[in-house]
């Protein structure tokens, strides 16, 4: 099931992603806070362990120091008793389990003029037997050895840095040296106590706050007094190790330790994130404990992995749960969609599933239902509208037939007259009209144009036509005809409808034309010579506007062969797509081209075609009426 196609899956995924993101952020923050807390706790723990260890080692050191301190007077009092001096060293060793050797070394020449005199008791490295010897000789020139020379030069007790003693002990050791002074304060020798470094290393290896922690003792010269890697003891200094680690922090730690500082420093020990706590020991040495963060965070890591697994499984479970719940919740949407599809296919009676909840789904269902209802109602309405439109249309067609039938079609073709007229409404029914009737040798004709178009115009036209039929037949003067028609049209014309009319009466015998123009377009007169011009007629006023308007008529004497072309503005105002009108100039030009002999029906048709050609199929926006009257 594609996520793109399944809303429930997608929604579930978003919800789960958001929730999982939130959980991860919370866990991370928890992790950060807890790890910093754990860090602090572990540091404090390591520090307190260091403090305890330093305290312990200082106790040992103090014991060793006490064993030889304040023996000046004992030695001085028994200078004459060599045996006693040997015995003193032996007792120091015997009485102190931490002391593996002790010497009383005298200044060259001080003891009975001897160059070297130094009673020395030590415990053999292998045999663990106590030996007592005199250790000074040409090959063991003790006065220039550190353990003798340095306290002498410094004139104070001195803990030597570790060394491998060739003189007797034959093992790695550190020596506590105490200057012996006579009553005047002059140094006449050094009394010493040796401690084994092997013992120190063993003891130190027990100081382990964490599984992989290790501890070290560093002398003032940076060399290791104790270190878990025994090859480093005596051989390496903290700086050679730092150089190998290539970590400048380790170098700084070394400096801080040699400076007798107490502190804590994070560094990278053999590629592992570690920290070291260090602090000075009373004798000038420094102790350090290295702890690996990996050790400290081991449990945390296990917990984190468990948490991560839990998060992962929880997320999956949540996704499944969400998917199912949302799927159930959104099931109606699927059903609505199916219903909508059924409707789209044309079945507007499709059943829309019910929903129980009163939420958005209910709203959606109501909308859908409302839509269905509306569509159905609309369809019913549409059906009835369509029916009524059809009826209306057919009625209009009938109206058109009636209107057209009102206009006479029996055009007279006589020796002295060729008359033809045509009307082309813009809509089914129009407001243009023409009429003619021949009584004896007199022909009465007219062309009219009702303002507006369509049904209202057509009705007004019908009235106008009827009025003319009746009044025109009375044989009244033209102005009287027009006056009466006008009065007739004004009667009850509240809508301001009006009609422009050109009406004429032509005596076919004499060629006398009486005409009256009621606001109509000037008609075209084409002489027998083919010359065309507009007839200048008094405009008077369109009919139907003001009762009792004093219309005036005019008279024109026509020669035989003269043609009158009557038209409505549907001709001159016929428009092309570019809004250019056919216009009076083109009409006059057209008229100038007409053969005076041509039958009126052909002339009318030609003008109509000209206009149609000009508009190039653009919608006809007004009724077109053309009448040609030729006096033969």
């Amino acid at each position, binding site marked *: 099931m594609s996520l793109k196609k399944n809303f429930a899956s997608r929604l579930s995924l978003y919800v789960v992603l958001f929730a999982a993101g939130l959980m991860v952020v919370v866990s991370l923050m928890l992790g950060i806070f807890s790890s910093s807390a754990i860090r602090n706790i572990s540091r404090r723990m390591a520090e307190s362990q260091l403090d305890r260890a330093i305290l312990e080692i200082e106790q040992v050191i103090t014991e060793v120091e006490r064993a030889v301190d304040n023996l000046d007077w004992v030695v001085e009092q028994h200078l004459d008793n060599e045996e006693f001096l040997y015995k003193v060293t032996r007792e120091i060793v015997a009485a102190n389990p931490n002391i593996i050797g002790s010497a009383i070394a005298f200044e060259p020449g001080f003891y009975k003029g001897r160059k070297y005199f130094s009673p020395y008791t030590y415990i053999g490295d292998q045999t663990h037997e106590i030996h007592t010897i005199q250790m000074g000789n040409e090959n063991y020139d003790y006065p220039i050895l550190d353990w003798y020379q340095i306290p002498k030069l410094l004139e104070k007790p001195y803990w030597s840095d570790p060394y491998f003693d060739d003189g007797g002990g034959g093992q790695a050791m550190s020596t506590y040296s105490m200057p012996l002074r006579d009553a005047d304060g002059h140094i006449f020798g050094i009394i010493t106590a040796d401690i084994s470094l092997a013992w120190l290393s063993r003891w130190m290896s027990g100081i382990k706050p964490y599984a992989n922690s290790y501890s070290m003792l560093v002398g003032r010269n940076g060399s290791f007094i104790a270190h878990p890697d025994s090859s480093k003891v005596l051989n390496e200094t903290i700086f050679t190790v730092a150089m190998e680690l290539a970590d400048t922090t380790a170098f700084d730690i070394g400096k801080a330790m040699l400076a007798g500082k107490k502190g804590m420093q994070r560094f990278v020990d053999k590629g592992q994130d570690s920290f070291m706590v260090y602090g000075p020991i009373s004798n000038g040495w420094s102790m350090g404990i290295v702890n690996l963060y990996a050790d400290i965070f081991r449990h945390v890591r296990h917990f984190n992995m468990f948490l991560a697994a839990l998060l992962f499984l929880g997320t999956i479970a949540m996704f499944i749960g969400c998917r199912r719940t949302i799927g159930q919740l959104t099931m109606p949407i699927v059903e609505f969609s199916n219903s909508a599809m059924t409707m789209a296919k044309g079945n507007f009676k499709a059943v829309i599933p019910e929903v129980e909840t009163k939420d958005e789904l209910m709203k959606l269902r109501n909308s859908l239902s409302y839509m269905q209802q509306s569509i159905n109602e609309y369809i019913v309405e549409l059906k009835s509208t369509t029916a009524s439109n059809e009826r209306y249309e057919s009625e209009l067609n009938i109206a058109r037939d009636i209107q057209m039938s009102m206009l006479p079609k029996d055009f007279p073709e006589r020796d002295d007259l060729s008359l033809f007229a045509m009307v082309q409404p813009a809509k089914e029914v129009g407001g243009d009209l023409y009429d003619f009737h021949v009584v004896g040798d007199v022909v009465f004709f007219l062309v009219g144009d009702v303002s507006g178009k369509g049904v209202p115009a057509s009705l007004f036209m019908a009235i106008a036509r009827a009025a003319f039929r009746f009044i025109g037949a009375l044989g009244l003067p033209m102005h009287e005809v027009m006056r009466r028609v006008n009065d007739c049209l004004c009667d009850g014309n509240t809508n301001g409808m009006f009609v422009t009319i050109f009406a004429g009466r032509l005596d076919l015998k004499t060629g006398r034309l009486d005409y009256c123009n009621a*606001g109509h377009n000037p008609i075209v007169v084409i002489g027998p010579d083919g010359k065309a011009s507009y007839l200048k007629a008094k405009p008077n006023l369109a009919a139907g506007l003001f009762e009792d308007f004093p219309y005036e008529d005019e008279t024109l004497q026509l020669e035989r062969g003269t043609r009158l072309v009557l038209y409505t503005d549907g001709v001159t105002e016929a428009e092309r797509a570019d809004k250019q009108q056919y216009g009076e100039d083109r009409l006059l030009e057209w008229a100038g081209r007409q053969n005076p002999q041509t039958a009126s029906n052909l002339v009318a048709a030609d003008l109509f075609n000209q206009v149609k050609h000009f508009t190039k199929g653009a919608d006809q926006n007004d009724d077109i009426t053309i009448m040609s009257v030729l006096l033969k």
Partner: protein
Amino acid sequence: MNVTITEEGAKALVKLEGRLDTTNADQFQKDIQPLMTGSHAEIDMDCSDMEYTSSQGLRMFLMLQKTVSARGAKLVLRNMKPHVKEVFDITGFSHIITIL
């Protein structure tokens, strides 16, 4: 047809622009409705930018004229283009409506 009506006291200044033909005659009727129902003592129409009027349009002017006259007010059409003026002349509307 674009109709802009500005009122100057009791006088309404009207600016007519474009063509008035069958297609927008109804709209024009609505546009000038405030002039029909209003109480302006004088309506001054600037027709300098009017391009054309159909017979339907003429009827609107006529209706306006009748209404305005009925309430004793004055309607004046000004600066009409010659070919537009001609329509008013031909139909005789120039007799009924004051065209300056």
